[in-house]
């Protein structure tokens, strides 16, 4: 684990305003946040506090209305759509609450998908996909369709997909939200293992039990960071 001085992610005074007709909604206001390489950060807060919006900005799915966002030292707040797509593909791994596997692709193809967009050769893809599936314990289900798997298994596949491209950071949005407690525990255990192996993870959750798994918990309220607790090891 490298907790050196230069952060992997640096947000400075980030704001996000949604405009609908004549109404302005301030989803994020003046967010300052650093995430270092190898850190496991959880973002917590009540519903509507801006957790998911923050995660969308961190994942380059959305752009901030103001402020700056640098990833691995490069400013990424106002990149073009294709540039953001390229960075998402190489630097960010997503784990969604609803898994977001593509139902018409097999487990193997789902995990392979981000690698195909990277232009990786077929041989390299095969090795990366197999490795990622083995790592989450789903190698034996490679040819199955998502609909043939349980929720927990689907989320493991989603984790494998996020891992396969060896991203700089894993972003997890309520990764246990659609799982029962047993499967939820299993997924959290998997994330712990990944973190122990050196992965940087940023997870949105409103479950305090799971938030405790992280090194640090950032609390949001009304679009602002109201607390940033480092949990003692």
């Amino acid at each position: 684990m490298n907790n050196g001085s230069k952060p992997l992610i640096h947000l400075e005074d980030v704001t996000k305003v949604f405009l609908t007709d004549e109404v302005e909604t301030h989803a994020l206001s003046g967010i300052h946040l650093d995430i270092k390489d190898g850190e496991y950060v959880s973002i917590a807060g009540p519903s509507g506090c801006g957790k998911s919006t923050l995660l969308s900005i961190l994942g380059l799915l959305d752009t901030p209305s103001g402020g700056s966002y640098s990833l691995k030292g490069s400013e990424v707040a106002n990149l073009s759509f294709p540039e953001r797509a390229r960075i998402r593909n190489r630097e960010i791994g997503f784990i969604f609450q609803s898994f977001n596997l593509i139902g018409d692709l097999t487990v193997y193809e789902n995990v392979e998908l981000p690698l195909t967009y990277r232009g990786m050769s077929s041989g390299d893809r095969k090795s990366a996909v197999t490795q990622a599936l083995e790592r989450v314990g789903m190698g034996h289900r490679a040819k199955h369709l998502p609909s043939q798997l349980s929720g927990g298994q689907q989320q493991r596949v989603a984790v494998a997909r996020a891992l396969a491209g060896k991203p700089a950071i894993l972003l997890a949005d309520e990764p246990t939200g659609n799982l029962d407690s047993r499967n939820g525990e299993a997924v959290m255990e998997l994330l712990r293992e990944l973190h122990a192996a050196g992965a940087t993870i940023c997870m949105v959750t409103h479950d305090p039990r799971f938030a405790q798994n992280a090194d640090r918990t950032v609390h949001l309220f009304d679009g602002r960071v109201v607390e940033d607790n480092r949990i003692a090891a």
Partner: protein
Amino acid sequence: MWNDIRFGARMLVKTPAFTIIAVLALALGIGASTTTFSVVNALLLKPWPYIQDQNRLLYVSEYFPKVSSEHDNGVAYPDYLDFKKQATTLEGFGTTTAATMILSDGEKPDRYLGAFITADAFSFLGVQPILGRIFRADEDQKGATPVALLGYEVWKNHFGSDANIIDRVVTINGKRVTIVGVMPKGWRFPEACDLWMPLQVEEKENARGNFNFACFAKMKRGVSIEQARAELEAIGTRIAADNPQTNSGVSVRVRFFREEAVSDAKTLTLLLMGAVLFVHLIACANVANLLLARGASRAREIGIRLALGAGRRAIIRQLLAESLVLAVVGSALGLILAVWGIDLVIRAVPVEMPYFIRFDFDWRVFSFSLALGLGSAVLFGLFPALQASRPQLVEAIKEGGRSGIGGGKGQRVRNGLVVAEVALALVLLVGAGLTLRSFLKLQATDIGIDPSHTLTFRVGLPPTQFKQEDAGRFFTALIPQIASIPGVESSAATTSLPASGNIGVSALILEGEAEPRQLQNARLAHGLAITPGYLATCRIPLLRGRDFTLADNKDSQRVVLIDELAAHKWFPHTDPIGRQLAMLEKLGEPPKWATIIGIVRNVVYDRLTERREFPCVYAAQYQNPEWFMSVMLRTKTDPAAFANFARAAVLAVNKEIPIYKVKTMDQVMVESFWERRFFGTLFTVFAGLALFLAAIGLYGVMAYSVRQRTQEIGVRMALGAQAGDVLRLVTGHGIRLVASGLAIGVVFAFFLTKLLQGNLEGVSVHDPLSFGVVSAVLLIVGLLACYLPARTATQLDPVRALRYE
């Protein structure tokens, strides 16, 4: 790309309803377009078989602009000789005249359409025989040994593909003729001939003023048609200066041979091609609409792909790959439909097509189909792909999230496509309505006879074998023989069948008039010879005077009948009965006067699509017998059943004379406007297809709109909206789309139907009835297409609708 295609195919298999509808729509569009393109290919693109350097081949004709600038005459034989001798821009100049040729060596005589042709023609056309040789240049000289070339089918069917046929002597038209060669399969120059003999013409028998030879020429390499035309026109001017009586006012028309051969059908074929591409556009619009709706429903999948780092290009490529799969399957099915379509087209043509028009499935047709399929994939796939590739990303990947494409812009595009479909369908339907009305008017034309229960056939004695008196005796014996067949009411013969177009125009003078100094100033009339009983057989009313009788023969005073138009035009203030006229067979020869003995009702002898307003003079066959005539028999029952009896009756009179062109008079009528019926039917089929596709498109959009508005409808119902309110809400939206399409379509149709000008009979291109009926039909179909989704909307359960996402 292969992964994209594989995934695309898998997605299409997973949504069979969508795939089947899209593939069928494309297959119908591509099938109809390919079928029509095969006609365009046959008429305008495909090289003719065996003729070399076709782009240098010309058709040359003479015509009197003062009489008609549209109708060509042939070329007078002496004029042909002058052109051939003086032209320096031409490599070859040939002429031909069609003739019945009777091969009478077998058990029964076989009649073929043959051509007498200048001996050097095949040489400069570049065709080679498969056996023997073509004509030598001296074989069209008078006194040369009679020789013939056999067509492939004659060689195969009449002579059993005899490899030793060369130098065999056979009997053609009673003459012993040596076979010198067999032409390749499919060669039937100039149009549908099966035998060729060298043209041996005596100039004195074909004096100037008889414009009855078809001429073709080949330009020298490097010469343009303008140069050739200028030279031939200059020669024509010199001929006219030297021969003012016959050639004053004669113009020379020079066209590419192909242009001449297809001129009648070119415009209609291209219009049909345009119409069918409209149908295909409607099909593409439907598929685009389906893809737009599908893109909206796949917004989440696309969102996930984008979140995982796919660029828009990758998404567009993925979606286009699916369109490509659709297009390839649609093209393949379209090609199969086109094979059937082409077969139907060939069967729908009731006349023998010229040999060079072949609706084969060649590489051009295949390439067209392929290109259309690929082009369509881009046409219907690109916009939906562009739209689908930019969903509101964060929304799209949320569970239950909706894509931006589902509303707003996507809906506007879908609406726009439906408006375009309705507009295109209206243009097609108006075009079809006009051609249909025109065709129905032609079909209802009163041609002046009763065509029912009448069988006709052509029969004749070759002039090379029989004298004129023999022809007279033959028909004198034949007609009573035919009339005596049980079930035959009456029989007669005529040189020209009504509505057949097989009639010439002759110059004439009335008593007291001097012979015109120039042919172009002469009185002109349709002239034909008939036997007694013709008026009764055709049921042509005799308005005044008397009919011909057997007593009107070569020994009696020459007599003629004229029609009402002639009486009105030539004798506006006097009684024509007893007055005299003379047909000018050869200028300068003493006129042969004939007395008018009766006036008959006007009869149409031109083809119904090529009517000219000429008076008509009927000569008595037995006073000046013709060799070839059409025999007509009026029967009490189905006339087609009498063909074998008629054949037997002819053989009983002369066992070497076959009959041919056996048709009922109703068939002759149909053939006289078959192109209009053919194109009218195709237009109607394509317009029907367009209407169907537009209705499907409208239904699809309305059904999708109802699904999208389920929650809104639920809210309205929860707030007290009645079924009628919901029905009005949904149909109102649809009707607005239809009305917009109609308004745009009417404007386009107003301008585009002008292209039909000249191809309609008795109907204005802006016929209000066609415009009105078509708009009403579209409106009704549009209402029906809206009604089903609207009814579904009224049956929604408000509680479930409110929960709907």
